[in-house]
């Protein structure tokens, strides 16, 4: 490596650069590790535990077992998986179909449709009109109000259009000469070629819908339909202890009520991140590549 023929000053510089970046890594990761440590510590050890600790004091899985057995949390997990799953499928299918049409250079009305989409990016009338549209359609308090929020995302649509446009024209023309209709070309040629792009926008949609909480909060009155993010918010941000601990346990200091609230909150926050962590390697692979190539192409 070139490092060997560097001067001592250059080596010191290099150490400073790497240390600065590693400090950044610590600042990023430590708060999350601290929550993990707190959530896994023995219940008696949690009070007074330092915010700097990254290893559990004693080891107990009680917090996690209480959380995972709690009906509100279980419902939240199921709701989140359902909403995220359905909206991602709808999003990817709807986006791909629309992008395919819009990527055809000679499509009549292409420009008008493009402007139609761009207007929605630059002009957002806000939450009250959105709320009224959902109300008029009778979607309030229904999963659909949340599932359909940004179901087809204009930005992702543009990304996919750009990708489809890169498909060599000769390939499409050859397929058309073979007598394939637009549906067949799309299914047998375009989709297989676009797998990396489709994977990327699937991940975009997954992350977006998993993390969405505001629409769910304002559209869903029925707590039984709340996704995990809203349950988390009620417990951690609004500090509604009863939401997780339960009124009986809270009053009588039994069951979950005996557990440290700080540890329960830590566990609840981490629980909400687990799916993101699970797909994080994929995110790194596809998002990073997508962003890099997008930036390079300019």
């Amino acid at each position, binding site marked *: 490596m*070139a490092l060997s023929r560097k001067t001592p000053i250059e080596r010191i*510089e290099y150490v400073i*650069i*790497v240390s600065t*970046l590693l400090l*950044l*890594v610590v600042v*990023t990761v430590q708060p999350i590790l*601290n*929550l993990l440590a*707190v959530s896994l510590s023995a219940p008696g050890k949690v009070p007074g*535990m330092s*915010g700097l600790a990254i290893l559990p004091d004693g080891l107990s899985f009680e917090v996690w077992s209480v959380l995972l057995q709690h009906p509100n949390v279980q419902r939240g997990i199921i709701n989140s998986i359902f909403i995220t799953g359905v909206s991602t499928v709808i999003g990817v299918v*709807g*986006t791909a*179909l*629309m992008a*395919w*049409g819009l990527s*055809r250079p000679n499509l009549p009305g292409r420009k008008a*449709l493009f402007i139609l989409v*761009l*207007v*929605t990016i*630059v*002009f*957002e*009338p*806000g*939450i*009250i*009109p959105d709320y*009224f549209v959902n109300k008029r*359609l009778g979607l309030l308090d229904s999963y659909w109000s949340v599932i359909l929020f940004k*179901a*087809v995302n*204009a930005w992702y649509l543009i990304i996919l259009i750009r990708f489809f446009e890169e498909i060599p024209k000769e390939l499409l*023309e050859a397929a*058309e*000469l073979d007598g394939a*209709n*637009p549906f067949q070309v*799309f299914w047998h040629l375009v989709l297989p070629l676009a797998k990396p792009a489709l994977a990327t926008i699937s991940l975009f949609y997954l*992350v977006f819908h998993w993390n*969405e909480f*505001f629409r769910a909060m*304002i559209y869903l009155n029925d707590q039984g339909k709340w996704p995990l993010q809203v349950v988390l*918010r009620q417990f*951690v*941000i609004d500090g509604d202890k009863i939401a997780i601990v339960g009124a009986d346990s809270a009053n009588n200091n039994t069951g979950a009520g005996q557990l440290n609230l*700080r540890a329960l909150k830590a566990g609840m*926050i981490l629980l909400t991140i687990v799916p993101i962590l699970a797909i*994080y390697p994929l*995110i*790194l692979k596809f998002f990073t590549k997508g*962003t*890099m190539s*997008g*930036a*390079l192409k300019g």
Partner: protein
Amino acid sequence: MTDRQHVLTSSRIGNVPTNSSRRKPGRVSAFADGWRRWWPYYLMMAPGILFFFVFHYLPIWETRIAFEQVRIVPPNVWVGLKHFQVLFSSPVFWQVLANTLIISTMKMVFFLPVPIIVALLLNEVRGGSLRKFIQSAIYLPHFLSWVVIAGIFIAALSPTDGAVNNLLGMAGIAPRSFMTDTGAIRWVLVFTEIWRSAGWDSLLYLAAIIAIDQQLYDAAEVDGANRWQKIWHVTLPGIVPTIATLFILNAGMFLNADLNQVINLSNDVVRSKIDIVDTYVYRIGLQTGEYSLATAAGLFKAVLGTMMIVVAHFVSKRLTGKGVW
């Protein structure tokens, strides 16, 4: 048989039957021809187009209640600009507008340099696995929701057992409750924004750095340039267009001080300092039920925001060749 095939076969035969010679001339037949070829695409686009109409264009139509008096028994009454007059004479509205501008300005000044510096430092790291490790760690927060991030920071900033106050305690500094400190809360917004997105944003600059011609570095080396001279004279000039683009785009989004962030990091003690237009719309609209006033405030922000984005787009296009879309 598609039109394209038709054209190919007919040219092979040698005569020149144009569409108009086969069918009635005029716009109607051109439309019919187009429809025959393109209807499958429109069928496939139909769900998407319908979605945009219902969930993006109907809301635009709904903004008319900003000009109406909502009545329990329809129809609503047209009142013109009355709600805007109420809005503009309300001190709370000007306060939230000022908050929005202050927070956006702070974010712009203190956030923007961070990802640039991170990218410059990352680019100096030789050794692919070390660099990958650092990147994997610092990109993560970008994919967490604001509910989660707020939860993390409420814990980390706790006056009794939060990491920050524990550190300050070691230095002999008395603990502060940052989340309920009116002087600190805006900085909490700036810092959490940096924590969440500075790492990820550095990727955009890193991509621009990697695209710089290696020969420029070789030439600088021949001239005896050291690390910092290369950064100053080669790398930075190479990413100035990217910096300019992102700066202008951020300026276009100036009024979007992130509802999700504020709503999760806010509380009764500090609300007056970080109440932004979006949270104001939410509060007076959905919580107090003043739909028309809230819609008027939202519409005011939307129109101003649209003008800023469009201006930013054309400025960016003119200066750097890259736009918002």
